[in-house]
Each structure stands twice: as structure tokens, then as C-alpha cells.
């Protein structure tokens, strides 16, 4: 059995709000499947699964805020799941007619009241979830026992079968003494008001699989300010911790654009290539030659990444930007890259990004040429170690071999982390980029 945890979707993320389960308990899942959607400062992100198996227990309901690292659900192998299910069935102590198990729909006021009660009561939790054996959970459900009222006597305060049965006999009416729900210690982006309504702090009750969102789903309070806070946190960290060095070079794009124009003439409009596709491929190819710029600086160590996942800076209309990863940029053909970028831009703007796209980028490329910017010196996205900036392609006087002519020129810049690399490596990269852009037909 493995634990499916709330992933960190950026250095600046403390928690995410579960929006939806895409699967329910008992459903088979496989690596790469999108199994949940989580609201973060970067919008709603689709969370992928990294295991094959059966989605077993679900610990959070849609609408709940889940700290990074907390277990959202468990994933078991098929054998484990079957074994558990049959064990539970065999151990069921009371035969209850089917009809009695079905709970009548509760009035909305009661739902809110119960949620508030749960918010102020301290359940037997470790971290943020109730520790309870699957068998005890099943019995509690059958007997209608509120888990927040049960004192666990098992290992680590876990609720056991005997605790549930005891609680059912005692039929407690009152919740235990209210205990303060511990606040997370880490700093939060300001989208969470200090006086959050108690329903938003509902202690995460384990639930059986439900793909139905509960009515009080937490709405993104102020998307723009949350996004600003997220960018502010990451960029402040970068400027505080990363000793940046910068360099630039002018690249003659005349040949590359002529090749592109000729290529596009042969293509129907849907298959045309934009200059940025060629540029991204050239950056990826150059990174294979200077891999030191592609990777991370973590715990004082330079970690070069084997995969080249370029994070492409995409601005959002409502403000802010996201740099989702284009996986294995260097392995893609120009056509594959065009489709991948188109898909990524569309999904970024319609809030359909996947978790791996937010976490996997190994270097960021920002292209502000469309906005008329001639050169851009970027701020590295930690823990990455470099950022490539591409400017607008403009006609400029160009002296070469003693002759002056007018060429289409682009300024490429590099921001490097001086802890990981030196200017020499940066220079090698820009040189490789220039060379690769003179031979775009080989990309």
C-alpha cells in the first residue's frame, strides 16, 4: 500500500484545496492517471497518480484544505484491496438490513452545524487525519458513530473496533472538550483571511469514496492576489538565495526565419510552425550540449537533470504567469513540440494543468518577443539553476566578414545560478544556441 499525498506544486505552496476526486474508492488507477483536482494559487491543477493499483481509502472531501504532504488517499494493490474488503466483510459484527444503513439526507443547516462542531472538536488525529483501522471505520459507519467523539486506545491513539463499540453503547451526546485546532506554522499567502470561517477549517474526516462535491466547496477567494503572493514568494526567495549572473548574445535569425517561412509555405495553416517552437527546440538541443544549466540546486548540491523539461512562461489574462513543463522537450519533433505548446497554453489558460507539469520543469524559458521586448533578464525559479530569455526579432545592422548588412536579429539572454555554474558554461550554452539556430533544418 502506498500513500497518495498532497504534492507540493511549487516552492511557495503550503496547502491546496481539494476540488474533486476523479475516481472513487475501489477504482483501478495507473501511473499518470489524473485522479483528483486541487485548487492552488496557480489555479485548479489536475493531480496525477504515480502508482498502479486500486484507490483504497480516501481521507479528504472536496472543499477541504489539505496541507502539502498530508495523505489524500491510499493506493493498494489489487490483492491487498480484495483481502481487506473480504476481511472487513467477514468481521462485520452486526447484520444490519440494507435499508437501515442508508442515511436520510440531512437538512443543510444540520450539515453546517455538524461541520462547525467537527471544526472545534479535536478528533484523535495524527497530523491532520484520524487514525483508525479500516474495520473500525466500517463498524462506525454501520452503527452511526461520529468518529470525532471517539477516543482511540490503539497504537498512536488509533481508533479500534472496541472503541467504536464502546462509543456506540455509551451513545455520547456531547462532543469532548473543545480543543484548539493547531494552526500551520508556516507563512501563508494572504488569500486566506486571518478570521477564516470555521467551516473552512473542518477537521478532515475520513470518508468513503465520494465524487460528489460537498456544497461548501471553498471558492478561490482572490485569485489574483493569491497568484501575486505565490510569485512574490518564489521570486523573493530567488533574489535572496540565488547569486545570479547574466549574459546576452545577439543571434542572427535571418536563416532560421527563411527556413521557417519556406517550411510553412508547404503546410496547411493548422500545421504551421511559429518561431517560438523552433527557438524552444534549439534551447533544448543546446542544453544537451551544456547539461549543467538544466537542473537544480538543492541542499547545497548541484543536481543536473537528465530529462530536459522546459518550463515555458505563459502569461495569464487575469494576471500573473505560470511556467508549466514541456516534458522531454529535446526528444520532441518540431511538430510534436508545436502541439505540446498549443495544448499547454490552452490548458494553462483554462485551468486544466496537471500536477507533473507544474513540478517537473528543469529550466524556464521566457519569450517576450510578442510584446515587443528586445531583451529580458530573468529571475531564476528556485530550485532551478538557469533561465533563458528570448527577445523580439528585429531588423538590425549586422557587420560580418567586413560587410555591413541588415539582418533579423534576436537577443538571447541567460540568467545563471553562480553556485551551480560559472560564466564560462553560460557562454558555451549561448554559443551552442547560436550555432543550433544557424542550422534549424537539423533540429
Amino acid at each position, binding site marked *: 500500500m502506498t500513500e497518495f499525498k498532497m504534492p507540493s506544486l511549487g516552492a511557495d505552496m503550503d496547502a491546496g484545496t481539494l476540488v474533486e476526486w476523479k475516481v472513487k474508492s475501489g477504482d483501478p488507477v495507473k501511473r499518470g492517471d489524473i485522479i483528483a483536482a486541487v485548487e492552488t494559487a496557480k489555479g485548479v491543477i489536475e493531480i496525477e497518480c504515480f502508482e498502479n493499483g486500486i484507490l483504497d481509502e480516501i481521507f479528504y472531501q472536496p472543499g477541504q484544505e489539505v496541507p502539502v504532504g498530508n495523505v489524500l488517499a491510499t493506493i493498494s494493490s489489487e490483492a491487498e484491496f480484495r483481502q481487506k474488503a473480504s476481511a472487513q466483510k467477514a468481521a462485520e459484527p452486526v447484520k444490519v438490513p440494507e435499508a437501515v444503513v442508508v442515511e436520510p439526507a440531512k437538512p443543510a443547516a444540520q450539515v453546517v452545524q455538524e461541520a462547525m462542531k467537527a471544526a472545534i472538536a479535536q478528533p484523535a488525529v495524527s497530523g491532520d487525519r484520524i487514525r483508525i483501522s479500516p474495520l473500525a471505520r466500517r463498524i462506525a459507519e454501520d452503527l452511526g458513530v461520529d468518529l470525532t467523539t471517539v477516543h482511540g486506545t490503539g497504537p498512536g491513539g488509533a481508533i479500534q473496533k472496541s472503541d467504536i463499540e464502546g462509543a456506540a453503547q455509551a451513545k455520547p451526546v456531547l462532543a469532548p472538550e473543545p480543543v484548539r485546532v493547531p494552526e500551520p506554522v508556516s507563512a501563508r499567502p494572504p488569500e486566506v483571511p486571518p478570521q477564516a470561517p470555521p467551516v473552512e477549517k473542518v477537521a478532515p474526516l475520513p470518508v468513503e469514496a465520494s465524487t460528489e462535491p460537498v456544497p461548501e466547496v471553498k471558492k478561490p477567494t482572490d485569485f489574483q492576489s493569491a497568484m501575486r503572493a505565490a510569485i512574490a514568494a518564489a521570486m523573493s526567495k530567488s533574489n535572496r538565495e540565488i547569486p545570479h549572473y547574466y549574459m546576452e548574445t545577439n543571434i542572427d535569425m535571418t536563416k532560421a526565419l527563411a527556413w521557417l517561412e519556406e517550411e510553412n509555405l508547404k503546410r496547411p*495553416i493548422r500545421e504551421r510552425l511559429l518561431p517560438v517552437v523552433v527557438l524552444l527546440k534549439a534551447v533544448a538541443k543546446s542544453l544537451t550540449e551544456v547539461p549543467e544549466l538544466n537542473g537544480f540546486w538543492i541542499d547545497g548540491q548541484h543536481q543536473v537533470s537528465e530529462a530536459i523539461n522546459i518550463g515555458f512562461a505563459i502569461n495569464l489574462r487575469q494576471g500573473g504567469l505560470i511556467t508549466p513543463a514541456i516534458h522531454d522537450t529535446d526528444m520532441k519533433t518540431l511538430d510534436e513540440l508545436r502541439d505540446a*505548446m498549443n495544448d499547454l497554453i490552452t490548458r494553462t489558460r483554462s485551468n486544466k494543468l496537471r500536477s507533473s507539469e507544474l513540478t517537473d520543469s528543469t529550466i524556464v524559458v521566457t519569450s517576450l518577443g510578442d510584446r515587443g521586448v528586445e531583451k529580458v533578464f530573468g529571475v531564476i525559479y528556485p530550485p532551478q539553476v538557469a533561465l533563458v530569455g528570448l527577445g523580439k526579432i528585429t531588423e538590425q545592422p549586422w557587420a560580418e566578414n567586413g560587410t555591413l548588412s541588415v539582418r533579423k536579429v534576436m537577443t538571447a539572454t541567460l540568467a545563471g545560478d553562480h553556485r551551480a555554474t560559472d560564466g564560462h558554461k553560460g557562454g558555451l550554452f549561448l554559443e551552442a544556441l547560436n550555432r543550433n539556430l544557424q542550422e534549424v533544418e537539423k533540429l
Partner: protein
Amino acid sequence: MNESELKDIIIAELAKIALGSDPAALDLDDNLREGLDIDSFDALNFFIALSERLHIDISEKDMGKLNTMGEILHYLQAQKV
């Protein structure tokens, strides 16, 4: 197709590309890329949508010259759509 019908189509396609914007508020000579804050990917997708909806081919060279509502209208009328 008359000018008003063409304009409606252009506005409808722009609204799909530039979500949350109001293309109808643009003047005939406003630059669409700046006015709607669309990038080269958006622009290409807009021209793809336009060419497929009106069954015309818009060459890459022409695309580069079409920056305002007025220019696009004029171009489409010349294509006799």
C-alpha cells in the same frame, strides 16, 4: 457575406481565443494583439479558426499584415467570402 456579418464572426472567434476580453469594444483601427493582449499562439489559433470557418486559406505572409479589425475585414472582403 456583408461587413456586419463578417465582423460578427471575427468578434466571435476573437472572444473564444481571448477569454474574458471584449473584442466588440475595439475600434476598427485598434491593434488586436495589443488591445486583447494575445500572443503569437493565440493569433495563429484565431486565424486557423477564421480560415476553417470561412473556408479560406490565409497565408503566413498575410497573417503578419493583419493586425486590426479593419485590416482583417478588408482582407476577407477581398477574398470574397
